[in-house]
């Protein structure tokens, strides 16, 4: 079984998405067991992330893998040590999969050119965050009654699309799943050539609801971008690009990759509302990441070659 990288969702087909979804369901229902037994999985985090790292590590360990973990907080990844050097070193340990998080877009694909192990991108700069989008699809599919139920639904992706690797994975993944997507952001938080996605760009969460959004996918606004030259104030941002209780019509679901800035992207009383899928997203993480690692390491037969 050869290694299979999970670096970007841009050219991933429907069959491949379905495969991950089905494996994740098998995992949740306890049908996969310790299928990573005997495999070595390395986590190389060049940028701090407790949540994603913990989710991957749990997924790998519960499935029986040996886990080697390096992070920028430990001495193993020292400042200035090049990405390529680290990957080459890890490669000598005989790893089957490398899970990599890095502050620069393209780091995962660069890493993949220097190792025969499967590379799983756990977030590269403003580039891609494929497992986040896969777990979002899984959580959303589950709440709607299955992957097939996603087609024809409408989702608005709201907030800082310009700097979001989550958006760059969610946009193609949702599209491939048949979801109609719109973008909601001020021009300062959109790429200049946002037209490249050929998606409607709307001016507020209210407009998104008028457009027929059933899913409000809220993106995290980084603290340093909350006021000043990109956004006038938290208050104005929250008014137009935040979701409040008044938006919670029947059938509307709120998603967020976390961690949420309460009162900015999502009003405090909405975060844990019944319409919020945020807890489901978090719990989908382990199942989806186990599925991804199983496919990456070739531990299960692949449907689509």
């Amino acid at each position: 079984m050869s290694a299979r990288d999970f670096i970007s969702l841009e050219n991933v087909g429907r069959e491949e998405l379905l495969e991950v979804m089905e494996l994740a369901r098998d995992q949740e229902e306890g049908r996969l067991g310790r299928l990573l037994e005997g495999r070595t999985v390395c986590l190389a985090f060049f940028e701090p992330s407790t949540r994603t790292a913990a989710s991957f590590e749990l997924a790998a360990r519960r499935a029986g893998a040996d886990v080697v973990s390096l992070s920028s907080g430990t001495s193993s990844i020292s400042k200035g040590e090049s990405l390529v050097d680290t990957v080459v070193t890890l490669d000598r340990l005989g790893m089957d999969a490398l899970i990599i998080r890095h502050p620069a877009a393209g780091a995962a694909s660069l890493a993949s050119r220097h190792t025969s192990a499967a590379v799983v991108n756990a977030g590269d700069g403003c580039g891609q965050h494929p497992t986040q989008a896969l777990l979002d699809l899984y959580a959303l599919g589950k709440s709607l009654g299955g992957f097939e139920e996603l087609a024809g639904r409408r989702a608005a992706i709201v907030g800082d699309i310009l700097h979001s690797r989550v958006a760059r994975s969610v946009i193609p993944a949702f599209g491939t799943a048949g979801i109609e997507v719109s973008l909601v952001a001020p021009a300062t938080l959109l790429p200049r050539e946002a037209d490249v996605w050929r998606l409607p760009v709307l001016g507020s969460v209210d407009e998104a609801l008028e457009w027929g959004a059933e899913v409000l996918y809220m993106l995290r606004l980084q603290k340093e971008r909350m006021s000043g030259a990109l956004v006038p104030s938290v208050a104005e941002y929250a008014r137009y690009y935040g979701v409040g209780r008044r938006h919670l019509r029947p059938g509307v679901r709120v998603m967020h990759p976390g961690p949420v800035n309460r009162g900015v992207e999502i009003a405090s009383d909405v975060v844990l509302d019944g319409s919020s899928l945020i807890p489901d997203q978090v719990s989908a993480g382990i199942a989806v990441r186990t599925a991804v690692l199983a496919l990456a390491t070739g531990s299960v037969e692949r449907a689509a070659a």
Partner: protein
Amino acid sequence: MSTRSGADRELVIRGAHVLDPSSGLDGVMDVRISGGRVAEVGEDLHGVRELDASGLHLFPGFVDVHAHWRTPGREEEEDLESGSAAAAAGGFTGVVMMPNTDPVLDRPALVSGLVRRAERESRVRAYVAAALHAGLAGSELTEMRLLKEAGALCVSDDGPGTQNADVLRSGMLYARSAGLAVLLHCEDRSLAKGVVHDGVAAALAGVPATPASAEDAATATALVLAAETGARVHITHVSTALSAALVGFFKGRAGVTADTTPHHLTLTDDLVRTLEGLYRVNPPLRPEGDRREVIEALRDGTLDFVATDHAPHAAQRKELPLQEAAPGFLGHETAFAALYTELVLGESLPLSRLVEAMSCAPGRWVGGLGSLAVGAPADIALADLEEEWTVERESLSSRSHNSPYLGRRMRGRIVGTIVGGELVHDRMGAKLGVRT
């Protein structure tokens, strides 16, 4: 170059297709070289030493006004020997070295030292651009008149640019009194926060992007100041449609010339999608629309000539994610072949316009180069326009390998380069063997 042997001897190059727009030469002819200069161009010339160049094209040697040979300071990436070998391999017989070295070329002693070293170590004519401001920091003027006496050809702050318009204005005024041209890399740093062009590729890739306005705004400022101060201003590596149009508007209103690079003429920001550090360059690769307009501006002479911005980098500075890599491409060795393949064969740019843009116009800008007129320095590039070749790491003379054309198939290759009558690059010894 002073120690070069044979420069005083006579040589006749026979049977090449001679093309020199500056002298109106275009046809199969012989060229007699004597005392390091062109002595005669005509038919059926003979001499004691003859070089059979039949089947080849013969151009005035190319002149590159924008090169980084990394001397002093980063000789592991390039030095005078390897940089000039790369230049010679690309048909360049004259090169201007930019001042962003370590230390910066901002003092007369550094400039005169480098000029003397270049005389000994460079295979081609090497000129020095000194800094416009101390440390390229854009605040204190350098001693421009002393720098000129020390041998500086022009002044430039290149990459860091001069970010304050009032300071730039003073720099132009003083350079005018010093009799030096000012070579400008136009980039407004307050807009240039990214590493690639802010376009479709950047949107999809999620790499920090810089809008075209970073170049356009700075170009507009520079042109306005050039018109006002009367300085001799040269704008280097123009890469956008609007900047090219602005240059066109100011032609005739200011003493301004401009160049663009082989890579902006032949590559687009599609390459950014690979996210490879190799493709980071400044100004960034632009979309096809800009590329087209820049080609047209070169075709109609709005952009006077081509300069490579030859910028060698060690592998560890390029084998990085795009946003962490050092900006810059190798340029000397691929310039002619890339432009011949993509522009002459691909876009029907007349070959004579390419020669004008690589030899005559930059040669005039440097002064006294780029011509095969009788009495001119015998600086010559010999090209085989039929040869097909692939750019490979191993075949590069530079100490670095950061060519964006690695693996590309090209048509047309420089097979011989002559500086002051002496063969400084001879790729096919047998073919070019001088018969005595």
